């Protein structure tokens, strides 16, 4: 099966890289799914979960990451996800995210609330 190479990079580190068969990300005009052989694409990401269905050497499975702002670019079967902040779902501290959500709700800080919400949804898998 055809596969595409994915690089998920945050501003200060490389978060994940490997082969995948499908990547679903949220752009400002809605969710977009990229499969191998997609037309070259450059889009603006909204903060939201990114789902990577892995194949090949990475093994069959699903990697979910919380991505806060950034870009998706695809060309030559190579997909880059650039984000200022990106966390894999298994790196996220659920309790801390829940606390952050509570705090953001009480402070009425919409941006922080959204960030915490995205984190939690990346962990629980409810999109």
């Amino acid at each position, binding site marked *: 099966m055809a596969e595409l190479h994915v690089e998920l*990079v945050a*501003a200060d580190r490389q978060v994940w890289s490997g082969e995948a068969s499908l990547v679903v990300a949220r752009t400002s*005009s809605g969710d977009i799914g990229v499969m191998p052989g997609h037309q070259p*694409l*450059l*889009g603006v990401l909204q903060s939201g979960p990114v789902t990577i269905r892995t194949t090949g050497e990475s093994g069959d499975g699903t990697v979910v990451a919380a991505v806060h702002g950034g870009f998706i670019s695809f*060309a030559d079967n190579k997909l880059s996800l*650039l984000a200022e902040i990106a966390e894999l779902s298994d790196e996220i501290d659920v309790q801390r995210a829940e606390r952050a959500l509570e705090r953001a709700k009480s402070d009425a800080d919409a941006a922080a609330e959204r960030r915490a919400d995205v984190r939690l949804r990346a962990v629980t898998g409810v999109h």
Partner: protein
Amino acid sequence: MGATLRVYKRRIRSVTATKKITKAMEMIAASRVVKAQRQVAASTPYASELTRAVTAVATGSNTQHPLTTEAERPTRAALLLITSDRGLAGGYSSNVIKAAELLTERLRAEGKEVDAYIVGRKGVSYYAFRERAVQESWTGFTDSPTYADAKAIAAPLIAAVQKDTAEGGVDELHIVFTEFVSMMTQTALDDRLLPLSLGTAAGEQDEPAKGGEILPLFEFEPSAEDVLDALLPRYVESRIYNALLQAAASKHAATRRAMKSATDNAEELIKSLSRLANAARQAEITQEISEIVGGASALADATAGSD
């Protein structure tokens, strides 16, 4: 113990104490250089992917954007100078300040006003001492900058570029920082960030091996303008972040070198002071012997006279 010998001994003790301190600072700086270099390497994938994306949009669409178009008659330029918070780094800060002065002169000669934005206490105090206007300054993080710091610096700069020149905005954005070439070499460098010159942004594409490659036609989501709008501020932030990290690595390397030569000097000083102290001790002994011999012979003469 004689007075001169005591003075020498005291100076040796104090130089030894200084040597211990400089040696410790050298070791700390050496370990920090490695850490800073690792940070530079970790930020590289993001920066290179971003550069690729910017190149793709800029060449793949005819979009005009205030951040990429050159003003016909640029009248004001912003200069971001990155220095360090602390000294003890040899000529590190003065070199980069000198480079900024040269650039300022060049821009003035081209008829542009220069707005200064400064990072690091050394640069701030240089400008404050000369009573020059500083638009904005940041201190306190030059040793280990984070991406949030780069964002904080980029925000007012981008706002200034987007504003009309008549209302106090700027047409160009220059950055002066110290490039980390190697452990031994760091060079002060000036670079124009905006307007984007496609020559530098497309530099990676112009490599001979890829010379004939045609960039694919991108589909933009939601539109080329929106992508560029979102992309360019990130590009500026990432360039500033990279400059901050390189400056931090350079600062630590410069500190290491300065402290190494301070330690070497202290060793030299201790060596020559011990020689002087030895000579003083010998002179003291010789004098004591001659006093004893002199005293004894005087005594012998006296007893011989009374017999």
